[in-house]
């Protein structure tokens, strides 16, 4: 009797691990870890913003609209809670994405504007901040890449047979992934402007 029970237990254990339960657990944890890294790096960027704004303000206070844009975008980022539960809610995920994208674009606007102030550009503090910002943007890119890969693995497991059965029994759903943030920009053909008569519509690509 006991042997029978043990045998049954062994069969169950093997069945559970054989149908992808453990793989789902492992990949789910990996996704969470990679997501934490993404949030961590975004937080790092958000923490840089006040310093950056203050430094730029000291040299280029007339760029009010740009500075206010950055500050507002920073505030909006802070209002979106980036909890792990966010991963199971595509809408909240999209909100998070759009808030971060807004901050990205307003920060790059700020850096473009600052090009016009030689004094600001040669300021040691600003240069350090700029280096930190660049480094953080790069870290964000790396973290996002790793997250994308982790989600890809996870979603493949959740959707493929037979682990999809396990996933549906235990309620594991696909997780949202990052999309290309500047989709619209990429889709638009690059415009070269030589300050002459506008070129005819660029329909060269088939």
């Amino acid at each position, binding site marked *: 009797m006991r042997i029978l029970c043990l045998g049954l237990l062994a069969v169950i254990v093997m069945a559970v691990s054989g149908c992808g339960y453990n793989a789902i657990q492992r990949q789910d944890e990996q996704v969470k870890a990679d997501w934490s*890294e993404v949030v961590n790096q975004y937080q790092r960027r958000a923490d840089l913003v006040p310093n950056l704004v203050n430094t730029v303000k000291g040299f280029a206070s007339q760029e009010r609209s740009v500075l206010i844009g950055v500050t507002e975008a920073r505030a909006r980022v802070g209002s979106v809670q980036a909890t792990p539960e966010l991963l199971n809610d595509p809408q909240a995920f999209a909100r998070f994405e759009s808030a971060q994208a807004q901050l990205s674009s307003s920060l790059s606007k700020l850096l473009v504007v600052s090009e016009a102030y030689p004094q600001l550009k040669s300021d040691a503090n600003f*240069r*350090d*901040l*700029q*280096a*930190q910002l*660049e*480094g*953080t943007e*790069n*870290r964000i*890119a*790396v*973290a996002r890449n790793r997250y994308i890969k982790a989600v890809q693995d996870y979603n493949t497991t959740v959707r493929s047979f037979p682990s999809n059965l396990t996933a549906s029994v235990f309620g594991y759903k696909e997780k949202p992934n990052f999309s290309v943030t500047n989709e619209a920009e990429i889709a638009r053909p690059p415009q070269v402007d030589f300050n002459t008569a506008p070129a005819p519509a660029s329909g060269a690509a088939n």
Partner: protein
Amino acid sequence: MNLLKLAGTWLFVLSAFLSSGAGAQAPIPALTTHVTDVTGTLADAQRASLEQTLQAFEAKKGSQISVLMVPTTAPETIEQYSLRVVEQWKLGRKNIDDGVLLIIAKEDRTLRIEVGYGLEGALTDATSSRIINESIVPRFKQGDYYGGVAAGVDSIMRVVDGEPLPPPDQRASGPAQLAHYLPVLFVLTLVAGGVLRVLLGRLPGAVVTGGAVALVAWMLSGALFIAAVAGVIALAFTLLGSGLGAVAGARVIGGQPGRFGGDSGRTIFRGGGGGFGGGGASGRW
């Protein structure tokens, strides 16, 4: 007809995508030395001197600093390329993540310092950026590549040196040390097993051999379980056959067969398994 045309277009698009998308990345050279110069910019003596400096630093501090000069990173940016390099090379010690890569793309006129997780606190983005812009770039602008690299490496070493890190491995820990003794143990048990079996007879000889192997394995590995398994295996094999028990017994405590005596001499430089997360700074000249 229309369908055929459509299919043709698809095929064309697909092939264009495949040829441009996949496999078009710049190759990553194999890691064999601290200084890897694909462009042939550095003279042999210069390369050797840098190599020696970095080797000495690794022996003293444990951190792995490496220099890579490539012609170009196209089509990727230097950030993407250098991350691929460090993910493949795995500079720095495992779980300490104290690797640094100074990468220079000569024709692109870009360079980058890629910093491992464990050194991000010391070699911050701002510090890396300063090293690039104040030590390296001015020399590169004058065409003094060796001077730039040497100055950069020097600054990096000084920053890393100030960071309290675990002391360098005397490569005397755990399985590495065990692997050193494995051949000895193997020969010893082979001989002893044979002799004892002849002297004492099959069963007592096997028991004594098993016990001896277990004892030695215990002394070497410090783990009672491993010792017991090694002893039992040695016993069984001595009992059943020739001195083969020793081989199997020795294998168990080594953990990884085929790796004994592996990295003796250490002429080939290898990454220690450190992780990177995109920290560091880039610059151009």
